[in-house]
């Protein structure tokens, strides 16, 4: 159900590593819970994040939620497409709907996160 090539947090962020760059977004489960997303506020490129820092926020008509950095690092890119098309988060949360990218991440921090199976189990518990 959830992609195997990424790690997850209990706050419903995902993070995927490619060539030392870590891309972050929110999961399909989170996007569905929020409903139609109307706005995404992204961090500034160059911002330094500690693991767990509030890095972005996401709004729908009925809810607003903070997005936390799943791992620490420096923001090296943000998804400008979300400024005009926040619906990408609902439509394609793991590809076009990514939020920001981090570099300078300590890979050890990834070990604290959930893999797809553990996250799926966690989400299952949330739904009951």
């Amino acid at each position, binding site marked *: 159900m959830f992609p195997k090539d990424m790690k997850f947090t209990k706050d419903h962020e995902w993070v995927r590593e490619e060539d030392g760059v870590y891309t972050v977004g929110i999961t399909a489960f989170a996007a569905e819970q929020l409903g139609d997303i*109307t706005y995404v*506020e992204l961090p500034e490129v160059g911002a330094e994040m500690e693991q767990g820092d509030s890095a972005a926020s996401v709004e*729908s008509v*009925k*809810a*607003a939620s*903070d997005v936390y950095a799943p791992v620490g690092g420096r923001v090296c890119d943000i998804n400008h497409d979300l400024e005009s098309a926040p619906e990408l988060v609902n439509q394609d949360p793991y590809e076009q709907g990514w939020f920001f990218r981090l570099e300078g991440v300590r890979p050890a921090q990834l070990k604290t996160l959930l893999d797809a199976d553990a996250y799926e189990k966690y989400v299952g518990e949330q739904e009951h």
Partner: protein
Amino acid sequence: MTWVPSTAAERDAMLSVIGVQTIDDLFASVPAELRAKSWALPAGISEMAVRARLEKWAARNAGGVTSFLGGGAYDHFIPAAVDALTSRSEFYTAYTPYQPECSQGTLQSIYEYQSAICRLTGLDYANASLYDGGTAVFEATTMAVRLTRRTRIVCHASLNPIYRSMLETHVANLDLELVDGESPEGAACVIVQNPGFLGDIEDFTALAERCHEEGALLVMSFYPISLGLLKTPGEIGVDIAIAEGQCLGVPLNFGGPWLGIMATRKEHVRKMPGRIAAATEDAQGRRGFVLTLQAREQHIRREKAMSNICSNEALCALRALVYLTLLGKEGLRDVARHCHSKAEYLKKRLSFAQILNHGPTFNEFAVRLPRNAEEAADALVSRGFLAGLPLASLGAGEPNDLLIAVTERRTREELDAFAHALEEVCN
């Protein structure tokens, strides 16, 4: 004395539907030891008696005097249609428009009000209202802190001293640094007022540029009527424009309810507090209006909300909208032109006093009288004039300093008579 319609028989019938004997049975969850220990209130009096008492109290307040009192609240003329329309109970007895389908009158009026404020200020977005001009300074401050993530707040000398002291009260328990001056260095915002509290018109365009170079915001408290003539906050480069909107068709009301106005640039709108209405469509493609960006507000975001504001001053915003709609494009300019011209005329008639403003003023100016201003003002009430605000009473001037405001309501005869009377009591 009651507004409860039920008769004793109806109450008994309702109690039997509920399945209890007495009304007190419905309060069984309130333990005896927690019942009211005192209820020492007077007995009710008839509608007639209430009116008589309040008419008596109202009559003990200054009435029928010609006013030159301003200092943030002004005696402007209110066209009869403002009262007639805003006293329609479909407006004043309605609740916040959380059910948009039965609140389109409210929501469209908010949209039109927001449009009027944007057109007045030259800014992109306005909210549906805040409490008043003083609390708007606090709301603008916390908004600037959210936008810049800085904690230094710079208050310019032009700011109403009452607003300054309200800001101090509201931020007392926050980690903010309140300083006086105009240096934007390291600041979240510089807060200015135009025209200033003593009436001076300043061009803050250069300050806006300096603020932006330093990464600070320029917050400006403006006087809505003055924008019939003056350069707009948008033209100046203001980031957050706030105002006391009382002058737009809201009575003086001994201080409230009034109207807090707030407008801002597009890039800041998501951090603006308060309700906002937006246009949209229903499934059949009909235009309608809803409250939007509610996820920023307290009922959804709770402790992370942009503000705690819930009730605002919607009915006063409607008054302002009806007022501006009646005046129209030319009417507002006329009111501003009259205010300014009459104030300039009066200034010239006060040669016995020293005008304290060195540059241009709009409709308010400060003078140093040859006599204590409180005494002079006191003496003038019996002659039918509220002479102005003795500035020492707010710590905003010397004992002889008086702040005088002139609106379009003052006639040349009144101005002449006032100048004469003021000169007499000063001699």
